[in-house]
C-alpha cells in the first residue's frame, strides 16, 4: 500500500482470511489538489482574457454601447449596471445564477454563457445614444470579479487550514485503529445463507411487484423527472440491486421469478423513456447529436449503474446481457444502439483511463464521486466474469483520485467537481454522501470505505439506547427519491446499508430498529413499504435489509462459489403463492424453506441442474422420491400451508 495504509499481518478471523490495516488521511500538498488546481488556473486564465478584452472599450473611450457590451462580458449584468440599470443588473446576476443551477441540474452547458452574453447584448442595446459611462461604474464592474474571487480564495484557505488541523488530529487517532479487510470467503462458513422472515419477504414483494409488471409499464414508480435522483433509472437500479442481494444472501439456489425480476429491471432501462434523457443532455451539454448512451465520454450514471445490475445478475443467473446486442437501447423502430455488458465495461474503462481525474462525468462536465463507485463495481464484476483486466489497470489511479481530488483534508469525500472548471461545493460533503460512498466503495477500495465509516461513527452518527440518529441538518432530512424534506429515512437506510456491509452490525441493527420503530408502514396485497418514504428509499431499504458483512464485496469480487453454480436449484415457483425464504445448495443437495404468499396452496416446484435420470430423495414434498428427466429437470408437488422445509438429496 502507499501512504494510505500500513499493512500489518494477514490472519484469519472467524475462519475467513482478513487483512488488518491502518488507514491514515493523506497529507494535502497544497490548498488545491493538482488536477483541480490546473483546471482552475486554466479557467481563470480564460476569464482573465475575457476580463481584459471586456475592459478595452471603456479604457479606449469607446461609445456607451460598446462600453456596456464590454462590461457585460467582464461580469454578468455588468453592462446594465454601468449604464444606470442596477436593478436589471441584479436581475441578470440572479438569472445567471439560476442558469448555473439549471446547468448543474441537467447539463445545458450553453445556458450560462447565453445568459451572460444576452445580458451584455441587452445592455449594449439599451445604451445606444445614452451618456458615456461614468468611470466609477467601470471601476466597480471591473473590480467585482477580482474581489469575489479573492474573497473565495481566502475563505477556501481558511477552511482548508482548519480541515488540515482536523485531519492531523484524526490521523493521531486513526494511527491506533486497525481495520479488517475481508478476503475471499470460504463455503460454507463465510457465505451464510439466512432465512428471510415474513417481514423480509413482504418487503421483497414490494420490489418484486414493481419488477414483474409488464416491461413497458411503470406503475408504482415515481414519475417526476428523468434527470436527477427521482429518475426512473435510479429506481430501476435500486430495484435490481436489492433483489440481487436478496438472491445472494437468502436464495442463491433459486432463480425463477427472482431472476426474472432482475432481468426485467435491466431490460426496462433499455427503453427510451428511461435512457432518452441522454440524447437531450448530450445535445445541450456537449452540442452533439449523438444519442448513443454508451459510446461517449460521459454518462457513467447509466453505464456504471446499469453495468453493476448486469454484473450482479450474471453472477447469480445467466449471461444473456453479455451476448451481442444483449443491451440494445432503442430510440425508435428505425434507430437503436446495440450494446452488451462488455460494451458498458469497456466504455467505463476507456473513460476512466482517458480522464486526468480518472473519475469521469455523469452529466456533461459534472463528475460525481459516488457515481464512479458504481463504475468501479461494474469493472470488478466484469473482470471476474469475463477475465478482463480493467480494474488492475486503473485502480491505483482511481485510489489516488479519491484520496486527493475528491477528499477534503478532514476526511470528508467531495461529492462533485466540475470537470472543466474544477469547482466543487464544500457544503455537499454531508453524511449522506459519506454513507453511500462507504457502502459502494467497500468492494473496490475497502480501506477508504472503512476509514469513511469510522469517521462517520466518530463524528456524525449517534447511538443511543439501541437507536441511531443522524445530525440534524437539512441534507439529512431529504428524501432524494421524490425531493421531499422532513424525514431522515433515506439517511437511515443508507446507514443500514453501510454499517451492515462494513461489518458494524451494532450500528446496522440500530439503524434498522430506528426505522422499524418510527416509520409508518403501508401494506397492500402482502407487500410492505415505508409509507412516508419514496420508492427509491424503499428500494434501497430492501438492499440494506438483505445485506450482510461484506455482502457487496463478496458478491462482486468473488461471486458465487462453484457449488452454487452447479448444484441443484429451484428454477420455478408460482408467485406469490410460493415465497422462497431460503434456498441453498452444497453442490449435491438442495435445501429450501418456503412460505405461502396467498394462503394455503397445493402447487408445483420446478427443479433443475439435477443429474439426468437420477432418482433423488425428497423430504417435505407430497412424494418421497423424484427422478430427473434427460435435461436434469423435475417437478415436485407440495402442499404449502405454513412454513415448509424441503430437502432434496
Amino acid at each position, binding site marked *: 500500500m502507499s501512504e494510505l495504509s500500513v499493512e500489518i499481518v494477514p490472519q484469519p478471523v472467524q475462519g475467513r482470511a482478513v487483512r488488518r490495516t491502518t488507514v491514515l488521511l493523506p497529507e494535502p500538498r497544497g490548498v488545491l489538489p493538482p488536477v483541480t488546481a490546473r483546471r482552475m488556473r486554466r479557467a481563470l486564465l480564460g476569464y482573465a482574457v475575457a476580463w481584459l478584452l471586456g475592459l478595452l472599450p471603456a479604457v479606449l473611450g469607446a461609445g456607451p454601447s460598446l462600453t456596456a457590451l464590454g462590461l457585460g462580458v467582464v461580469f454578468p449584468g455588468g453592462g446594465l449596471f454601468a449604464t*444606470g440599470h442596477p436593478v436589471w443588473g441584479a436581475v441578470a446576476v440572479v438569472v445567471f445564477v439560476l442558469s448555473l443551477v439549471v446547468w448543474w441540474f441537467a447539463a445545458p452547458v450553453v445556458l450560462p454563457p447565453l445568459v451572460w452574453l444576452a445580458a451584455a447584448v441587452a445592455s449594449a442595446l439599451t445604451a445606444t445614444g445614452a451618456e458615456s459611462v461614468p468611470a466609477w461604474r467601470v471601476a466597480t464592474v471591473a473590480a467585482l470579479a477580482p474581489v469575489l474571487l479573492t474573497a473565495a480564495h481566502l475563505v477556501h484557505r481558511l477552511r482548508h487550514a482548519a480541515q488540515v488541523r482536523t485531519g492531523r488530529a484524526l490521523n493521531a487517532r486513526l494511527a491506533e485503529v486497525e481495520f479488517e479487510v475481508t478476503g475471499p470467503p470460504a463455503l460454507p462458513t463465510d457465505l451464510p445463507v439466512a432465512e428471510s422472515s*415474513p417481514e423480509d419477504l413482504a418487503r421483497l414483494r414490494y420490489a418484486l411487484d414493481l419488477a414483474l409488471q409488464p416491461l413497458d409499464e411503470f406503475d408504482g414508480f415515481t*414519475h417526476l423527472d428523468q434527470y436527477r435522483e427521482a429518475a426512473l433509472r435510479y429506481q430501476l437500479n435500486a430495484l435490481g440491486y436489492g433483489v440481487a442481494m436478496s438472491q445472494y444472501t437468502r436464495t442463491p439456489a433459486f432463480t425463477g421469478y427472482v431472476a426474472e425480476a432482475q432481468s426485467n429491471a435491466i431490460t426496462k432501462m433499455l427503453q427510451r423513456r428511461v435512457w432518452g434523457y441522454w440524447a437531450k443532455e448530450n445535445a445541450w451539454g456537449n452540442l452533439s447529436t449523438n444519442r448513443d448512451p454508451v459510446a461517449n465520454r460521459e454518462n457513467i450514471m447509466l453505464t456504471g449503474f446499469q453495468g453493476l445490475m448486469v454484473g450482479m445478475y450474471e453472477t447469480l443467473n445467466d449471461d444473456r446481457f453479455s451476448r451481442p446486442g444483449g443491451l440494445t437501447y432503442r430510440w425508435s423502430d428505425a434507430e437503436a444502439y446495440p450494446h452488451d455488458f462488455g460494451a458498458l465495461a469497456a466504455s467505463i474503462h476507456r473513460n476512466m483511463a482517458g480522464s486526468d481525474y480518472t473519475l469521469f462525468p455523469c452529466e456533461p462536465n459534472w463528475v460525481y464521486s459516488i*457515481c464512479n463507485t458504481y463504475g468501479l463495481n461494474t469493472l470488478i464484476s466484469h473482470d471476474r466474469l469475463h477475465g478482463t483486466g480493467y480494474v488492475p489497470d486503473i485502480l491505483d489511479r482511481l485510489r489516488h483520485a479519491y484520496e486527493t481530488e475528491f477528499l477534503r483534508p478532514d476526511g470528508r469525500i467531495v*461529492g462533485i467537481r466540475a470537470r472543466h472548471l474544477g469547482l466543487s461545493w464544500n457544503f455537499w460533503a454531508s453524511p449522506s454522501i459519506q454513507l453511500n460512498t462507504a457502502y459502494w466503495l467497500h468492494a473496490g477500495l475497502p480501506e477508504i470505505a472503512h476509514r469513511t465509516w469510522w469517521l462517520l461513527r466518530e463524528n456524525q452518527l449517534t447511538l443511543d439506547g439501541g437507536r441511531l440518529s443522524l445530525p440534524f441538518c437539512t441534507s439529512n432530512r431529504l428524501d*432524494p427519491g421524490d425531493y421531499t424534506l422532513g424525514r431522515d429515512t433515506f439517511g437511515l437506510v443508507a446507514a443500514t446499508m453501510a454499517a451492515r456491509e462494513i461489518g458494524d452490525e451494532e450500528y446496522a441493527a440500530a439503524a434498522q430498529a430506528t426505522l422499524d420503530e418510527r416509520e409508518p408502514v403501508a401494506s397492500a396485497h402482502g407487500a410492505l*413499504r415505508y409509507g412516508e418514504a419514496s420508492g427509491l428509499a424503499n428500494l434501497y431499504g430492501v438492499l440494506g435489509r438483505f445485506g450482510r458483512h461484506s455482502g457487496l464485496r463478496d458478491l462482486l469480487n468473488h461471486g458465487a462459489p462453484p457449488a452454487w453454480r452447479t448444484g441443484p436449484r429451484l428454477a420455478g415457483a408460482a408467485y406469490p403463492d410460493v415465497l422462497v425464504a431460503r434456498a441453498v445448495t452444497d453442490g449435491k443437495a438442495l435445501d429450501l424453506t418456503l412460505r405461502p404468499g396467498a394462503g394455503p396452496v397445493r402447487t408445483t416446484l420446478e427443479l433443475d441442474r439435477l443429474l439426468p435420470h437420477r432418482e433423488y430423495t425428497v423430504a417435505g414434498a407430497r412424494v418421497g422420491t423424484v427422478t430427473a428427466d434427460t435435461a436434469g429437470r423435475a417437478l415436485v408437488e407440495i402442499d404449502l400451508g405454513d412454513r415448509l422445509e424441503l430437502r432434496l438429496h
Partner: protein
Amino acid sequence: MACCLAVALVIAVLRAGWYRLVPGRRPARPGFAPPARRPAPGAAIASVTGSPRGSGPADRSGDPVPPRIVPARQRVGFALVAAGAGWSVLSLVAMRLPLGVVQHHGHSATPGSGVALPAAHGFSLSELLMHGPGLIAIVLGALLTLSAAASRRPFHHTLTPRPERAL
C-alpha cells in the same frame, strides 16, 4: 441514486416552498405496483407466453390505474407560459416604439430614430410593471405545468403505524 443530493436538496426546498404556497397541490406519493402473478411450473404456461409485452401478466383486478390525461392545471400552466412569453415580447417591442404610441417612464426618445432609449438615470418602477408580469406568468406557468406533470394516481393503500412485525 444519490448522484448529487445537493441538487435534489435545492429542488426539495423549491418544491416545499411551492406546496406551502399552494397547499393541496402536493402530488400523491406512488404506493405499490399492481400485484404480480406467475403460475406454477407446468401449469398455465400458455397464459405467460401469450403476454404481448414480454413479461408475465399482472393482476390488475384490485388496483385499477386511471387513464392518464393532461390535467386542467397543466393546461393552465401552458397557457400562462404562452401568455407570459407573449407579454414579454410585446413589452420589449413596445420599449422600442416611438414615444406617443407606447410611452413609459424611464425612457427617452432619440429624435428621428423612432427608438425609445433608456434614460441614464436608472431603473424605474414603470419598467418593472411593464416587463415584470410576463416573467411572473412564465414562472408561475412553468411551476403549474411541472407540478401537474408530477401528479400521479393517488396513494390509496393502507397506512399503518409501526410496529407490525408479521404478515
